[in-house]
């Protein structure tokens, strides 16, 4: 602290501390605490707030256990997000490895730019592009009909399948960059040495590349899972009433059910799920927080 004061002087230090305090207290910590506290209170009309009925309760959390439909949607959100995460990892690993270790140096800037550009494009627009592809009269149905694979157009939209396909597409870039960064720092001589000593390519990946890429895999999986489980845009656009996502249930508590306390409890459950996944991945891959937020 004295070093901060020595470098910036009293006035500037005061401004810096005030700004950081405003950010962390008013914008980050207090809202989270408020939301959690709110979730342990019953939903009451304003006249009864602070009255005898305004007590601590876990009722809002029990709702998830007693409501079979919500519980099923919650569990579906977990496995579907895990599936999205595993699929993006499988799709991205070869590309990341190629870019980081195999690609010729002069071709690399263009390839990276081709990865960066879609990354900048609005998530909602990327989702929308799949809405058009998967539409009943869309190009995918036309293609499959033309190839004779199906006899009549299929409904791809409005189901879990469409949502999962869309999520893989939308969140794939959050996997490919962490993987690329991790594999890029691997010394190519290690691969050469393993090959000289007679290791096959499968063994090289299992024993050398994958262990080295662990932090990247952890970061990619954490980001992808968090984005998938917390996604609202993709299920809203590509899903339907039969493929609701947990975030849509939360939204409905707020803006259709009018029960904010209940919605806050569900939101906290979603947050706990994501924190649990982060801690699990950090432990599994043995990485720290500083490796994650880069």
């Amino acid at each position: 602290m004295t070093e901060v004061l020595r470098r910036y002087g009293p006035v500037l230090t005061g401004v810096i501390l005030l700004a950081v305090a405003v950010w962390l207290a008013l914008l980050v910590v207090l809202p989270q605490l408020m939301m959690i506290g709110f979730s342990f209170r019953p939903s009451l009309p304003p006249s009864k707030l602070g009255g005898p009925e305004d007590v601590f309760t876990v009722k809002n959390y029990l709702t998830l256990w007693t409501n079979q439909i919500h519980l099923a949607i919650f569990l579906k959100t977990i496995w579907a997000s895990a599936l999205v995460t595993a699929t993006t990892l499988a799709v991205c690993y070869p590309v990341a490895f190629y870019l980081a270790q195999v690609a010729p140096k002069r071709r690399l800037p263009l390839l990276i730019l081709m990865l960066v550009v879609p990354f900048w494009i609005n998530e909602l627009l990327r989702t929308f592009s799949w809405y058009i592809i998967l539409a009943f009269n869309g190009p995918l149905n036309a293609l499959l009909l033309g190839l004779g694979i199906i006899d009549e157009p299929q409904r791809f939209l409005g189901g879990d399948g469409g949502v999962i396909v869309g999520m893989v597409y939308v969140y794939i870039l959050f996997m490919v960059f962490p993987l690329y960064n991790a594999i890029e720092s691997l010394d190519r001589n290690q691969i050469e040495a393993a090959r000289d000593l007679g290791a096959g390519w499968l063994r090289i990946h299992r024993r050398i590349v994958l262990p080295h890429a662990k932090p990247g895999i952890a970061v990619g999986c954490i980001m992808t899972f968090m984005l998938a489980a917390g996604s609202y845009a993709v299920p809203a656009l590509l899903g339907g009433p039969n493929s609701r996502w947990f975030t849509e249930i939360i939204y409905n508590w707020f803006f259709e059910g009018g029960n904010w306390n209940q919605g806050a409890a569900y939101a906290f459950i979603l947050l706990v799920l994501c924190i649990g996944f982060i801690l699990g991945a950090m432990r599994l891959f043995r990485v720290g927080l500083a490796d994650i937020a880069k």
Partner: protein
Amino acid sequence: MTAARLRRLLTGAYLVLFFGYLFLPLGIMAAATFNSSRFPTVTPWMGFTLGWFQALWEDQRMWAALGTSLLVGAGVIALAVPLGLAAALLLDRLHSRARTFLYALMVSPLLTPGVIVGISTLVFWREWFGVSGGLFLTVVAQSSFIAAYAMLLFSARLERFDPALEEAALDLGATHGQVFRRITLPYLMPAILSAALLAFLQSFENYNTTLFVRGLDTTLTVFIATKVRTGLTPAVNALSLVLIALTILGAVVYEILRRREARRQAGSAVALETA
């Protein structure tokens, strides 16, 4: 030798597939803009038209939503960039446990699902200040995590900053204010510009957080989502195409500037070593 060639062939095919997968959907979406079908599709092709751009141009609600997005974006730049800058300046001078703790707290909004950022902001401001959803809360909620992106950008640049410059200026009698204005800020200027650009883009494309705190205001991204669900015409594709074109332009410019800056720094490092 044949095994190696086969592997190269497979790798090449996979790359073509991968990049095709990345770009083909966007291409199809763009192509549907020019089809004179009432529903956006490329099959069947009903003839070329530019009419959907005109329909878009005449849509008053689109212009209103664009205005809202620009306003929110400006607000986020004004709030999140200074917050991120202050955070990075503080972190740069802290060590050990305090730094780790603050850092974890600062990046936590990036690891929180966007809907939760929106919900917690909505609940907190209504309960404490009686403020309900609208432009102000949208700016506040978006800034709470966009400030973290700004902080990361500033921290990366401060890592390469030579504190001796500041100390020399202080020794020569400059005040802290002068040092900050004349040395620290100019050094950080490229990062301030990138942070502002990133903050604006993040704000502009945000949907999950905005949805909960927008009140009755409609940003352009919310407008598009509403249009897709109710009243979808290829005018939405026209809007998407315009936004994508602008984004690609911005991304390419940003990348070129970033690479030039990286080369310049590498160059000055070499010059210093040879001097």
